């Protein structure tokens, strides 16, 4: 039991960071110092609340979020989040594959496009030959290398008082559009819509039951909290190392200095490993989630634990998604693609978060585990935040992106 709990927390930590979190927090730290720490915390609180609900939905009803949205609100509503999430998740998957390729570019100096196909092939192979625990636990364990950002932050000994004060939202003294764009991108990179259905699908894959609800709560709270510590670490390191030297993060070469400063010649290797593994893990989760979303939406047989020919449509969906994403990232700059998709994540979130308010209060699904008043109020606040982000995301992308 304790091992399963530890595994769950490690998986959440390892899976928390991806190319979006690294890019947005590094850029925010370089441009606005510690000031946007609060955005990481807002995104983390939202994702804790929502993943706990999705885990509870899966453990009690053995249905995922995509299942419940289609079954309760019908295909005509479900078609909107399905279409939006397939588009945005494919773009984010392209950014993740680009992240892996860029990590190899940083290590070798060879143009990143050379590594796109090998990275996509490696990602596809892990899903095709591996099962859910290999994808989820194996890759997430490797993802722990990203904890080096936390040690790096500790090593640089920032003004902890200033960092703590930055946990309280504050208005920008300049560049308001860019400030708010980064705030939305950070929340969008932490509260990625795919995380919710993937977390619920993982709970169904691992056959969670009502007795696992306490583990669900623990994993959601501690896993996501430790994971956000890494994001704060990247932001603080960028604030201490990159900003004062007048550098931005226009490219990942500049973000490397966040770990070179505290760890010297080890910094580059740690950054390359963190970026590669974080993006690879997120890419695997995204590919699987696209297959879960489509399969659950149309009622097909689905499981990462089955052999591909036993759920051919499920396997072909993630195969086609990886192929399409690899093609996209051959022609698009991964960092720019990342920044656009993190903002678009915010635009998709309301369509996926709103149904939770209906489903999580439905006794047919949750029996006696429906939401309490407090959870409903907090969920309504998250929905409000998601709608505000959805409305301002695209205009801010134009002005501040």
């Amino acid at each position, binding site marked *: 039991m304790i091992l399963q709990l530890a595994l769950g927390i490690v998986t959440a930590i390892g899976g928390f960071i991806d190319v979006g979190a690294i890019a947005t927090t590094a850029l925010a730290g370089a441009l606005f110092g510690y000031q946007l720490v609060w955005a990481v915390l807002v995104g983390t609180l939202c994702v804790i609340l929502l993943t706990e609900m999705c885990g509870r939905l899966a453990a009690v009803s053995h249905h995922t979020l995509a299942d419940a949205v289609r079954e*309760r*609100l019908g295909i*005509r509503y479900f078609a909107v989040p399905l279409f939006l999430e397939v588009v945005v998740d494919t773009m984010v998957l392209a950014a993740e594959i680009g992240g892996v390729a860029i990590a190899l570019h940083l290590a070798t100096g060879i143009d990143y496009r050379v590594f796109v196909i090998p990275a996509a092939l490696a990602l596809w192979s892990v899903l095709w030959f591996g099962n859910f625990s290999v994808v989820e636990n194996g890759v997430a364990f490797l993802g722990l290398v990203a904890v080096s950002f936390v040690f790096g932050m500790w090593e640089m000994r920032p003004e902890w008082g200033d960092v703590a004060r930055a946990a309280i939202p504050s208005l920008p003294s300049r560049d308001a559009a860019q400030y708010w764009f980064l705030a939305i991108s950070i929340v969008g990179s932490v509260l990625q819509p795919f995380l919710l259905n993937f977390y619920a699908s993982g709970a169904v894959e691992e056959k969670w039951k009502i007795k696992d609800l306490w583990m669900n709560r623990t994993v959601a709270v501690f896993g996501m909290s430790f994971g956000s510590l890494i994001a704060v670490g990247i932001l603080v390191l960028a604030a201490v190392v990159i900003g004062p030297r007048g550098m931005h993060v226009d490219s990942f070469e500049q973000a490397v200095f966040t770990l070179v400063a505290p760890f010297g010649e080890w910094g580059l290797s740690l950054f390359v490993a963190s970026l590669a593994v974080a993006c690879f893990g997120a890419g695997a989760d995204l590919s699987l989630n696209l297959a879960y979303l489509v399969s659950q939406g149309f009622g097909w047989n689905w499981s990462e634990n089955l052999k591909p020919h036993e759920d051919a449509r499920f396997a072909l969906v993630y195969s086609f998604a990886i192929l399409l994403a690899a093609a996209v990232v051959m022609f698009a700059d991964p960092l720019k693609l990342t920044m656009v998709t993190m903002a678009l994540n915010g635009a998709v979130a309301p369509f996926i978060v709103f149904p939770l*308010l*209906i489903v999580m*209060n*439905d*006794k*047919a699904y949750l029996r006696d585990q429906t939401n309490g008043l407090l959870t*409903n109020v907090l969920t309504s606040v998250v929905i409000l935040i998601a709608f505000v982000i959805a409305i301002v995301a695209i205009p801010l992308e134009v002005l501040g992106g």
Partner: protein
Amino acid sequence: MAKRANEIRLEDLLGRRVRTADGRNVGRIEEFRARREGDYWVVTEFDIGPNALLGRLAARHLGITWPGRNRGYRASWEQINLDDPRRPTLNCPVDQLKQLR
């Protein structure tokens, strides 16, 4: 199962506006209530209007009530004419329909 020419698809009726004989809009069909009749199930009632929508979303327990006077009706199968599934019309005055609380 051989397809019969005069079959109706429930999903084509779902959400359709029901009109009175003189063309006034009564509301949208949101639910179909079926009852067992021997070995079969038959549609005996149609729920129309916003409260019916909340009912099928199983969202009544959220305490949401639709503003305004007309919250919904329950029409029996004799009270609705489905000859043209795209334009279901009432066979009786609206006030003969049961109100949906």
